[in-house]
């Protein structure tokens, strides 16, 4: 839709200058933050990439938000997780919690590494980002349930989910699990690190929740034909 609209619209300069609004004229392009995209010399670019560069030199570009950085430490998945964990706009606190979580994971893994016998040392993953991504991957459900009305009754129908929806569900489950079922005195980062380490080896309550979702979908597989029927 944006492509068709941008064919009709011309670049206009609004009276109020857009700095960091979320609604832009579809004519504006997304900013490219990664350094790798600019390091490539002219010769190595394919035809499409050359076209893209041409376009970028002509068209206006949206202002980058504060979240995106070109540093090696910024990870869009972690940024999304931080945003989901944030309460009342307190992103500083959410960021601190995630930082402490990753540090905690690293400490536990390094501890395990030093205590492990020689043969087992290579298998222990010490990179907390890798553990986070693995845990998230393991928590993503494959099929989801949708409530579809047919003949006056509502049935739970198994449907395929989009990638964004699956990632959102995985993150939401992790956060809800860590908020609700923890001891009163356990801090969030401690509980989060425990859950992430468990999820990366396919144990723990979040994996159980995902399996329950799969079992429900399997139980209702007869209704799969009700999708938009």
């Amino acid at each position, binding site marked *: 839709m944006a492509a068709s609209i941008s064919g009709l619209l011309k670049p206009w300069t609004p009276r109020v200058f857009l700095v960091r609004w979320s609604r832009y004229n579809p004519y504006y392009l997304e900013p490219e933050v990664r350094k790798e995209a600019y390091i490539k010399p002219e010769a190595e670019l394919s035809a499409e990439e050359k076209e893209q560069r041409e376009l970028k030199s002509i068209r206006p570009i949206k202002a980058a938000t504060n979240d995106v950085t070109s540093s090696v430490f910024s990870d869009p998945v972690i940024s999304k997780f931080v945003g989901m964990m944030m309460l009342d706009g307190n992103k500083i606190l959410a960021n601190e919690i995630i930082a402490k979580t990753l540090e905690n994971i690293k400490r536990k893994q390094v501890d395990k590494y030093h205590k492990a016998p020689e043969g087992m040392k290579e298998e222990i993953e010490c990179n907390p980002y890798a553990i986070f991504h693995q845990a998230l991957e393991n928590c993503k459900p*494959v*099929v989801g349930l949708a409530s579809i009305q047919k003949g006056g009754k509502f049935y739970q129908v*198994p449907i*395929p989910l*989009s990638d964004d929806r699956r990632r959102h569900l995985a993150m939401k489950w992790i956060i809800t699990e860590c908020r609700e079922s923890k001891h009163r005195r356990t801090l969030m980062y401690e509980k989060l690190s425990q859950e992430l380490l468990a999820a990366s080896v*396919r144990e723990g309550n979040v994996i159980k929740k995902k*399996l329950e979702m*799969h*079992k429900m*979908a*399997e139980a209702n*597989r007869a209704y*799969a*034909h*009700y*999708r*938009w*029927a």
Partner: protein
Amino acid sequence: MAAQRGVLFQEKVSRLLSKQHGRPVLKPNKPLVLKDEVANRRVKRGGASCVTEISVLMACWKQNSFVESVCSVEMKAFYSCVDEAQVC
């Protein structure tokens, strides 16, 4: 030929609008001009796609008591089916 038909049609419309041939048959409140876009139609509900893939995957799950690592082939087939369904 199409041009002639167009002209004849315009003449018919002007006859229906004019007051010289008795009462006008048409009394439009907006100008009789076609728009250059179609109105939003209700989204047609498509058929259920990838049902076979889902059922195969679930049979695999049932057999292996929901262990995921065993059913990787069926999962890949399911994901490829979903991608194709999304694209079209």
